[in-house]
């Protein structure tokens, strides 16, 4: 892709970050005034964005086809909620604790999982996810089993705000911060190392990129995002149950990044929105949801494998770059001396 000449369109075209921030600002203003259902949807959107961005760091950027994200989402939710229920700790303590717990578990499973590649990694993480779900269901003394449990919701969050608006505000804030953090990270040496591992492990290693360290970083980060989202989910619903973290939800998260675009931060945000829209639109038809997601996933893989982001990248200024400094305008290839041509 050669540098295009600077045109009026290029200059007027808003960059993804501004579009995103304006959308977030609109959401911040409008959602608290909407009815409680729409406020819930806005809150869920923020949580899905965090989930999708975190999953994309691991799957889309680092190329590790892991299936533990829903389980880690659950560990964040259970960790946050159970610390609250059993020990009466405030959310300001239990939310980060839940996220850290998910991170530690994510790093722990990454140690054996990192020796596996491809399908074997998928199977190992899938087994871990099923085991986690089993613990949620059967360790009844601690997790309250299949029926789930209620979590008292804080009203201290922001004085004068309802618990609904308060948890939405926190979710929105974290979604913005964590999305920007990920967008910054992929444009750093760490992000390029992740992409290098995805595009060619052997070549990456030969350049001095430590495979285990890079993959463990991606696993840990991704788990932190999932755990944070889980804590926010518990805070939003005031209720935690195992079925929110099963394989269907894993498929939902995969659908977000496949539809939005693997290896794209913009795509993660759009994919989270698209999946939520479909999910809520089909809420009345329970059986249709799963069929619709199957179709959406297959359609995406077949017809637009690069996701919505694949189209957006064609917009001037929207192609994702992995260096901060804009490259100086390259001379047209014709200006290259003859000897440099193949």
């Amino acid at each position, binding site marked *: *892709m050669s540098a295009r000449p600077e045109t009026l369109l290029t200059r007027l075209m808003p960059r993804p970050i501004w579009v995103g921030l304006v959308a977030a600002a609109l959401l911040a203003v409008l959602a608290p005034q909407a009815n409680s259902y729409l406020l819930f949807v806005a809150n869920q959107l923020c949580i899905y964005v965090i989930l999708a961005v975190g999953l994309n760091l691991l799957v889309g950027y680092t190329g590790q086809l892991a299936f533990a994200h829903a389980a880690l989402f659950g560990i964040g939710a259970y960790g946050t909620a159970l610390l609250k229920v059993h020990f009466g700790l405030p959310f300001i303590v239990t939310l980060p604790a839940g996220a850290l717990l998910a991170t530690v578990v994510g790093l722990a499973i990454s140690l054996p999982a990192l020796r596996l590649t491809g399908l074997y990694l998928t199977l190992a993480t899938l087994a871990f996810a099923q085991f986690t779900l089993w613990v949620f269901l059967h360790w009844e003394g601690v997790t309250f089993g299949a029926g789930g449990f209620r979590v008292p919701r804080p009203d201290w969050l922001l004085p004068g705000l309802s618990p609904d608006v308060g948890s939405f505000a926190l979710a929105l804030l974290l979604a913005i911060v964590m999305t920007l953090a990920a967008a*910054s990270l992929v444009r750093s040496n760490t992000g*390029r190392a992740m992409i290098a591992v995805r*595009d*060619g492990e052997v070549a990456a290693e030969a350049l001095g990129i430590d495979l285990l360290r890079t993959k463990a970083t991606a696993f840990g980060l991704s788990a932190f995002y999932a755990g944070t989202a889980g804590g926010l989910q518990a805070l939003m619903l005031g209720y935690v149950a195992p079925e929110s973290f099963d394989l269907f939800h894993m498929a939902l998260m995969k659908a977000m990044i496949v539809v939005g675009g693997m290896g794209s931060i913009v795509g993660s945000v759009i994919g989270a929105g698209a999946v939520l829209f479909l999910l809520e639109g089909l809420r009345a038809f329970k059986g249709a949801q799963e069929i619709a997601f199957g179709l959406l996933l297959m359609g995406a893989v077949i017809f637009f494998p690069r996701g919505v982001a694949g189209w957006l990248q064609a917009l001037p200024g929207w192609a994702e770059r992995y260096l901060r*400094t804009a*490259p100086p305008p390259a001379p047209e290839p014709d200006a290259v001396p003859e000897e440099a041509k193949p």
Partner: protein
Amino acid sequence: MTARIAVEGLGLSFGGVAALSGVTMAVPPAEIRGIIGPNGAGKTTLLNAICGIVPPTEGRVLLDGQPITGLKPSAIAARGLRRTFQTSALFGGLTVLENVVTGLHTGLRAGLLDGILGSRRLRAEEAEGIEKAHRVLEFVGMAGFADRRASALSFGQQRLVEIARALVSEPSVVLLDEPAVGLSLNRLSDIDRLLRRIRDERGVTLLLIEHVIRLVMEVSDSITVLAAGTVIAEGRPEQVRQDPAVVTAYLGTAVHA
């Protein structure tokens, strides 16, 4: 003078099959060492063993007198050894410039937090890296392609970018696995000149596997000939060319009725 890179009694077996056995060679600094041999002689396996991708089962490799055998490939790379691959190994999702900057990975100090926060250290290192990457792209004659996606280049262009990516960190040794594959014959003199400039201007020691015998003979300071995993000849190109063992390995022995 210690050898820049030395291989001592290197052996590598897969199951019971010895791919390399007792390979010994020493390459002084800033030399181009050609490695030739018939197909299956173990040339690529030798490079893989040196750079740690497939650790040898016997013997050792010394870089500037220090043993590097048993280190992870990334640790060996951090000591100033790079390689290119037979099939192009650029990172397809990155641009040419981003690929070359990634070649600087081992020298960077910015960590995870620097990346998340976009710290001053990260920016400074990156600006310096881009500067270096542009210079080395110019060195290999790919200056006009910095902003192209790596996957959009021709095969020959990808090879040149791969060489740039290997050179950008100023390594002391570069292992080149068939750099002329995919290049047209009239570009051979370009690659010949480029290899000499890498040796003379940058002081890099090159280990060169190449099937284009004309290129190896012209550009190498000395040549090691492998056959069936062992060294059968070593010396200056003109000596090696006339060595009866080499002729036999390539052409086979005459059949006497």
